[in-house]
């Protein structure tokens, strides 16, 4: 006890911060809080007024006239009415007024509201801050009143006597470890930086390669598709001929088959192609991905022209009668040379990969026919879009 008494100092909190002073501080802070809260109340009034006004401005143009008492000075009114209910004169500030419509006025008011809200927020944060301060002053005052003391003792390293030798190793440890840790941290940081740099470079390389490859791929696929389509068309021709003969043979049974097959289309894309094959328009299914299948469908649609709606996947469930009419159409169309469908192919590839998903149902037939004459754009170009 004697030793510590020599080295340290004991000051009561009350002597540093007198109780009255702390209380005075707390009181002052309370006063500021009160003032700020009053301001906040004003601001909230403004916000409420603003929202009321927004409602009013929204409602006023609903009618041509509103009967009101027109104020004439502060103490008098005339019976009158509001006219030009969609014309508002709004103060922008600095004495400048603009004539605005209801909607534009509401926009202005919304902006005002936003600024008011931000003011309210900042004021609330301020009040929170002040309250924390006030509570701090209060606790300080109460602590000072309780007679709390502050004990301060300077640390002196030289006097390492018996009881002080113990803490030394721990201190050393403490001092060594942070350094090691720091070093490791630095190492780690450097390592991470290097790795990230390497990753970056690698990514760049990869991206460059991919770009080349994708260019090539696109060309390749375009070529492939062309080939496959041509094949398809050949098949179409041949098959349509087959179909014709088959159809004349199996007119009745084919129809019943079709009725069974059409609902299935709705279930599965795979089925869909099969069914289509059955009808004899597409034989080749070169790739299984959806777009190409849908392109094929497009081709079919072209050949089927007027009746294509009944074959579209979404409307497969349409009645069998439509299907049967389509079959008769097919017979008519399929006798045409492949040239026609060839044109359709260029058109369909270009356009329908993009917007097939959305406008499949209603506009395919018109699109196909309308696109036909348009210049064939390379598939490669289109995909770049």
């Amino acid at each position: 006890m004697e030793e510590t008494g020599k080295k340290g100092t004991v000051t009561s909190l009350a002597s540093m911060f007198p109780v009255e002073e702390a209380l005075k501080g707390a009181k002052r802070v309370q006063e500021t809080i009160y003032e700020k809260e009053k301001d906040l109340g004003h601001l909230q009034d403004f916000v409420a007024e603003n929202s009321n006004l927004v409602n009013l401005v929204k409602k006023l143009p609903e009618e041509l006239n509103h009967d009101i008492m027109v104020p004439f000075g502060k103490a008098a009114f005339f019976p009158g009415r509001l006219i030009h209910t969609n014309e508002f004169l709004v103060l922008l500030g600095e004495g400048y007024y603009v004539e605005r419509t209801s909607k534009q006025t509401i926009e202005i008011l919304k902006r005002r509201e936003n600024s008011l809200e931000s003011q309210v927020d900042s004021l609330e944060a301020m009040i929170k801050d002040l309250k924390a301060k006030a509570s701090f002053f209060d606790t300080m005052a109460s602590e000072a009143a309780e007679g709390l003391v502050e004990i301060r003792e300077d640390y002196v390293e030289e006097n390492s006597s018996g009881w002080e030798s113990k803490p030394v190793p721990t201190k050393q440890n403490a001092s060594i470890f942070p350094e090691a840790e720091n070093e490791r941290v630095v190492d780690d940081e450097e390592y991470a930086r290097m790795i990230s740099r390497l990753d970056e470079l690698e990514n760049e390389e990869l991206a460059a390669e991919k770009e080349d490859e994708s260019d090539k791929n696109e060309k390749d696929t375009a070529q492939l598709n062309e080939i496959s389509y041509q094949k398809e068309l050949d098949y179409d021709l041949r098959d349509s001929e087959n179909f014709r003969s088959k159809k004349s043979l199996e007119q009745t049974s084919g129809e019943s088959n079709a009725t069974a097959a059409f609902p299935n289309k709705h279930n599965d894309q795979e089925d869909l192609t099969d069914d289509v094959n059955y009808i004899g328009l597409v034989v080749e299914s070169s790739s299984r991905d959806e777009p190409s299948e849908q392109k094929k469908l497009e081709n079919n649609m072209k050949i089927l022209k007027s009746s294509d709606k009944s074959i579209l996947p979404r409307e497969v469930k349409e009645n069998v009668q439509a299907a049967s009419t389509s079959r008769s159409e097919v017979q008519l169309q399929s006798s045409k040379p492949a040239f026609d469908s060839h044109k359709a192919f260029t058109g369909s590839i270009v356009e329908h990969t993009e917007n097939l998903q959305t406008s499949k149902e209603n506009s395919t037939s018109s699109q196909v026919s309308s696109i036909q004459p348009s210049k064939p754009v390379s598939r490669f170009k289109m995909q770049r879009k």
Partner: protein
Amino acid sequence: MDSHPKVQKYEEFVDGRLKPDLVRALAERDKVFEQQKVFSDLRRNIENLEKNSVTSLQTLVNLGSEVYMQAEVPDTQHIFVDVGLGFHVEFTWSEALNFITKREEKLARQIEDYTQLIASIKAQIKLLCEGIRELLELPAERTVPERVF
């Protein structure tokens, strides 16, 4: 000092009673002044209408927050004037002018009353201050130049 408690009592009276009274009286008088201005404006406006023999007029109505809309008054012959306590009476122009002159007289009387009240409160404050000064035996001349300045 035996005079000290008395001085404190006087000071308390001045600070706690007379000064708040004075502030309140001033606020009341300001309100009445405002009223007077409102009615004199109204009188001037009605006289203006009469002079120009306006039968219908267009004005802008404040919807709040400085947003204005056009309004139309088809007939200006009848005017509703605030007579107090939230009542508005329909007057013709001449009736309104009669009412306004009466109202202005009343307001002028009220202002006179308030002015006298304020003067008396000020006089009391000054009296007490003099009393305190005498109790503390301070020279009278010291305060006067300050006041004049």
